[in-house]
């Protein structure tokens, strides 16, 4: 430590301008992305999991599901949806308790950073990683398993809004569920079973309509099923809509349910979010 004296700060110093809000959010997002990419477990688990799954699934089920449509075409929707849920819901639900336990959140609260900037940083990270991961997944599926990408602008548009609404809902729910974990280690114990059960009952690993009806009805209460369904409308021919439980891809209902989960997520975040651990007051 050196002993250079800093110029005396007058007691009533006029404070300079605070950095712009947008700049703060971008800086926070960049920091979150850096932290994510440097944490090997996150990268392997979050980015790698859906790709490993598509490699396994496409290799096992290399046939068609009728009408000359490849199995890959069906399972890619579940893998995209799972990937988006992993990067948002699981990623945040596991990491936020660790950061809370380490005291990182408490430290942020002690600075003049507006609270929303921290949330914005998480959202920017989730969106950036989500896009990268989805692109990677599509590239692997196209290169190795002859996946047909959506052919019309309308389908890409549907892809876009389903992904955005789904990621938003899952991000908010991931932030909300992070408050359930009491310690750093319990985050994944809370989140992983929820994610796994949802994946099984929402048609990620099986053809959704092959599942028992009651299971389909339970799944319909949660966002993942609707993300998968919306994505099926993008990657499967129009005619396949008739095989859905509702007799069509029900894009209107997809939008409504996902939007509803966004609202539920916001309410849960606002009412339950904790910056400090319970023992910390």
């Amino acid at each position, binding site marked *: *430590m050196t*002993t250079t*004296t800093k110029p005396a700060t007058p007691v009533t110093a006029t404070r300079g301008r605070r950095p712009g809000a947008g700049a703060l959010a971008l*800086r926070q997002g960049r920091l979150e992305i850096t932290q994510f990419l440097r944490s090997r477990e996150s990268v392997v688990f979050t980015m790698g999991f859906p790709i490993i799954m598509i490699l396994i699934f496409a290799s096992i089920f290399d046939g068609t599901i009728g009408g000359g449509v490849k199995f890959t075409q069906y399972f890619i929707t579940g893998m995209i949806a799972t990937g988006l849920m992993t990067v948002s819901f699981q990623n945040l639900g596991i990491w936020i308790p660790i950061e809370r336990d*380490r005291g*990182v959140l408490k430290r942020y609260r002690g600075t*003049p950073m507006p609270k929303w900037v921290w949330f914005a940083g998480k959202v920017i990270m989730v969106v950036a990683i989500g896009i990268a991961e989805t692109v990677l997944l599509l590239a692997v599926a196209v290169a190795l398993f002859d996946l047909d990408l959506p052919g019309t602008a309308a389908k890409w548009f549907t892809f876009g809004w389903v992904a955005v609404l789904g990621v938003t809902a899952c991000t908010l729910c991931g932030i909300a569920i992070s408050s359930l974990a009491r310690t750093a280690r319990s985050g994944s114990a809370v989140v992983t079973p929820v994610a796994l059960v949802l994946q099984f009952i929402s048609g990620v690993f099986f053809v959704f309509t092959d599942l028992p009806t009651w299971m389909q009805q339970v799944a319909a209460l949660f966002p993942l099923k609707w993300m998968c369904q919306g994505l099926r409308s993008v990657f499967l021919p129009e005619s396949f809509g008739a095989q859905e439980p509702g007799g069509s891809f029900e894009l209107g209902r997809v939008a409504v349910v996902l939007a509803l989960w966004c609202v539920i997520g916001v309410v849960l975040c606002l009412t339950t979010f904790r910056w400090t651990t319970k023992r910390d*007051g």
Partner: protein
Amino acid sequence: MDDELAISVRGLRKAYGDNVAVAGVDLDVHRGEVFALLGPNGAGKTTTVEILEGYRRRDAGEVTVLGVDPAQPDADWRSRVGIVLQGTGEFDELTVAEVIRHFSGFYPDADDPDKVIERVGLADKAKARTHTLSGGQKRRLDVALGIVGRPELLFLDEPTTGFDPEARREFWELIRDLAAAGTTIVLTTHYLDEAEALADRVGVIAGGRLVEVAAPNRLGNRQEALATVSWRTPEGTRESAQSATPTAFVADLAARYGGEVPGLTVTRPTLEDVYLTMIGHAR
């Protein structure tokens, strides 16, 4: 609001269930002062300080910190207050320089990050990931994050835990340096020598109460305390007496023994004696 006061506390109380952590604390800290809260673990130091920092809600009492109620902190107030928490909030994946630079961006009047790194003695660790730092180095990073916004008031909760003696001396220099530049400093510690070395005034806290507030050398009326004169009698037993005028007493003794008094000692209570008596009474 009194402009001369950085902190004013009246009748502060806080309980966690049945456990009363702070049981009615009154406290004033003047601007530019270095104030130490000294007390054993569990005395209520951290609870008191975290209420002042705006982290915890109080049950009762009036509190103003830099003229603002810390229960309603706003961004402007936050930018004027620097906080070094007891537990470290670690950013394992980032380097020292990255963390300090990032946090400097939150403050409207931040110090130059490189200068701050230099100042806390982490210059040769600037590019190291924070998880590779030693305990004392992590603490320096904490201090760096506390001062990077050039606060008017700096809280330090047990700042030198985990420091080796040399690092503590260097840290003390840094605190004196900040104080000389006009920063008000409130630190908690359970090291007596730290309070004595740094603080203009020490508040001894025990059992959730402020037992005494005084300059370190006046604590427990230490200066006026009776001296203990002790010597060996010709029979070989040890005798001692309390005296307000130990010089005269020793002169008397010398006359009685006709010169050298065997095994003579004259002592006054050390800060530690005074402190242990104080916290002993509060228990």
